[in-house]
């Protein structure tokens, strides 16, 4: 049984220049992978939050027509609400008070009293039933017939664009993690091959006195495991520290400006596993490399 944390080394691997760099390179890879994965994970969380917030809502906008008075517009809003409420799949429809709309526009229009007299568009906040959603297209048509100037926005465009963006970022992050893993594997293969070449004579002696290939491979495996865990562990800790720092920086900003980027406890767990997974992959790579090379020896 392979003992990962103890055991003797018959090959002086720790003195090899080719394997000396291993902890540093693997550390760098682990750091990059940690950041990329953390980015992907928090983006997924963000997307899920937004999606949840938007998918159960639609907004109906009623534009004031020509010289219409406020009361006339309000009457059309009431018609629209009535139309909405008789539609199956709609749980709630309520007009957003004009004062609230004015407040929303305050940064652009100011606080003057006459803002209320401007022909402001009216908004109706519609909540859909959870398990049954209405035929949006049909509803949109019907609404436009009954209430000229009324438009319906189910945020579909916004949602699909957002979804595409976040998915692309996630794919990018996965790609980064994948490339980093490939690069790390290549580094381990080269370091192991270097070690095999440097210690060819010793390996031959080990063979001639009756050592199995596994015995030799075991030496490389344990060496690579330890070095990768050392470099990867430090880098993983640095990665997590970086993330915590970033979060604290983000918290100091106005929370209203930024959507909350949260990393769940289990996601933290995944991040902490990166160095261990990387070291296991490296160890397995070293074993395969050694076994393949030794199979070519007598």
């Amino acid at each position, binding site marked *: 049984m392979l003992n990962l944390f103890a055991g*003797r080394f018959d090959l002086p691997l720790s003195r090899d220049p080719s394997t000396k760099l291993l902890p540093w390179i693997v550390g760098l890879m682990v750091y990059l992978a940690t950041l990329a994965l953390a980015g992907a994970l928090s983006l997924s969380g963000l997307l899920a939050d937004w999606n949840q917030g938007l998918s159960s809502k639609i907004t109906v906008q009623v534009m004031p027509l020509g010289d219409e008075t406020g009361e006339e517009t309000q009457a059309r809003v009431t018609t629209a609400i009535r139309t909405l409420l008789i539609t199956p799949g709609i749980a709630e429809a309520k007009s957003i008070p004009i004062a609230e709309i004015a407040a929303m526009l305050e940064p652009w229009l100011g606080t003057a009293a006459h803002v209320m007299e401007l022909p402001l568009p009216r908004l109706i906040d519609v909540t859909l039933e959870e398990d049954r959603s209405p035929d949006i297209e049909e509803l949109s048509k019907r609404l436009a017939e009954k209430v000229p100037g009324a438009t319906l926005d189910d945020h579909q465009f916004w949602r699909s664009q957002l979804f595409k963006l976040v998915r692309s970022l996630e794919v990018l992050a996965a790609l980064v993690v994948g490339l980093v893993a490939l690069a790390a594997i290549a580094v381990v293969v080269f370091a192991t091959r270097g070690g095999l070449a440097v210690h060819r004579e010793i390996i*031959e002696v080990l063979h*001639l*006195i*009756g*050592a199995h290939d596994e015995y030799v491979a075991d030496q490389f495996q344990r060496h690579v495991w330890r070095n990768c865990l050392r470099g990867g562990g430090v880098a993983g800790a640095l990665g997590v520290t970086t993330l915590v720092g970033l979060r604290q920086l983000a918290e100091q900003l106005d929370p209203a400006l930024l959507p909350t980027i949260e990393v769940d406890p289990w996601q933290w767990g995944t991040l902490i596993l990166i160095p261990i997974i990387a070291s296991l992959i490296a160890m397995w790579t070293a074993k395969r490399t050694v076994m393949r090379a030794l199979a070519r020896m*007598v």
Partner: protein
Amino acid sequence: MPVKQQTKQNAADGVVRFENVGMRYGTGPEVLRDLSFSLGPASFHFLTGPSGAGKSSLLKLLYLARLPSRGLITLFGRDVATIPRRDMPELRREVGVVFQDFRLLNHLSVFDNVALPLRITGLREGTIRKHVIELLTWVGLADNLDARPTTLSGGQQQRVAIARAVISRPRLLLADEPTGNVDDAIAMRLLYLFEELNRLGTTVVIATHNDALVSRFGRPRMELEAGSLKFHGVTAAASSTADSDGSKAEAQSKWPLTLPKLADNLSS
């Protein structure tokens, strides 16, 4: 089972059997040609011949570092060409080799070098320690357990190499010019050590071009010349000369021969 029958039948042929064996390196000329011989259990042979005659190549075939280009080699009754790679290590553990250049692992201590053949078998460290210290005491290196081989004299390194070759009590012991780097007195001592192991049942083959030594020891000789082998019986009196008697006495006083005890320990 046909396999078992074959093994039994071959076992009668002795420890080593060569049949029309030829060997070449790559596409070069044959360095060994049509070798046919067998070595019985507990036999003792010198392998002589001029430099380049193929002594080292023949030894490489015997310690399974190379496979023959043609012909049949059986080792302990097994055809080496048909042994799966996985089973090679077990067979190699039955063969002890003292390499011409010792091939000690210079980054390991004397103790660890000698312990290596036992460690690869997964023996417990306590047992290993006991056997290694006993053997190193026996070859007079008890005070050098922690020394690196490079800090030792040629003769001492040779004794480490020999200890490593015999620690696992091989059935076949091969030595390539073991007397090459040492003066005659030490050479005689080493040969007495090999004789001692031979008396305990080990088949011994010693490659040398020290003809004086060969004739003084009076053991059968295999002579390689240009890739072919000739057998010679005992060419000189097997009994000791005054000279070798002296060396023998010295050897025994230096290395108390407790090897039978060691053998018992290892086999238990």
